């Protein structure tokens, strides 16, 4: 079994008020020096069988049509190595 991670972020030009709210809270918590925060979504897909090119292509299509709305969001797809001990 393998894990594929899809990260979805608002496009850079789109205002992210949630990220701004987080960023504004940081000085109160004693975190200085962070000028911007943007908040996104991470999907972890547990894939049965090998993650070959065909499987990745299907997940890419899924991300493009469903997990992300490409009118307002960008996404990346990557395979994550799952450590044996963690299985």
């Amino acid at each position, binding site marked *: 079994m393998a894990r594929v991670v899809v990260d979805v972020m608002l496009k850079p030009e789109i205002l992210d008020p949630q990220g701004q709210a987080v960023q504004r809270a940081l000085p109160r918590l004693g975190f200085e020096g962070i000028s911007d925060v943007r908040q996104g979504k991470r999907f972890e897909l547990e894939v049965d069988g090998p993650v070959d090119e065909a499987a990745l292509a299907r997940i890419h299509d899924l991300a493009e049509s*469903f997990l992300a709305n490409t009118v*307002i969001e960008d996404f990346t797809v990557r395979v994550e190595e799952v450590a044996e001990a963690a299985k």
Partner: protein
Amino acid sequence: MTARIGVVTFPGSLDDRDTQRAIRVAGAEPVALWHKDKDLKQVDAVVLCGGFSYGDYLRAGAIARFSPVMDSVIDQAKAGLPVLGICNGFQILTEAHLLPGGMLGNDHLHFICRDQKLRVENADTAWTTDYTAGQEIHIPLKNMDGRYVADRRTLDELEAEGRVAFRYMDFNPNGSLNDIAGITNAAGNVVGLMPHPEHAVEPLIGTGRTDGLPFFTSILKKLVNA
């Protein structure tokens, strides 16, 4: 013979009954449609109503867009079927790419519920002919994800083609670009807006005015005269 207007109920829809009532008040016949049915029961028009379809998980309207009923709505809207999306229905229409742009959380991060002043910008769509362009109306607004966004090119196109159908006046309640409250597709049969005309069809409730009723009388006239 009157017009038959379908109202889709998704799990999480809130305003299907109010929408059916508004259709009846206008003199048309409401037809209940179910999210799992591909069959649109040969209705003359469809309203996608407000609420939180499928909990609005993932994104507002994102899961509803892939429901069986939407396959038929998308196909027929492209062939000219009049479709009105109110609030969550507007979000579903953008997710289905029947309308351009997308909907995001209000810029102030709070749910908002208020009587909202709007200007009718386009009185030529299937759903707005009983208004006059430039008319100012008051309609209830209630949402979490009401911020309309689109890239600059899309906004310019909408403005140039007169496809901004409704604009917020006096106060932008959610950070929508260009104060956009509602838009239409190029053909004028698909219209989406965040405020709720179905809550303003009788003087007793809503804003105390009937400023939302012309949505439903507009489509009725169009269908009966067709």
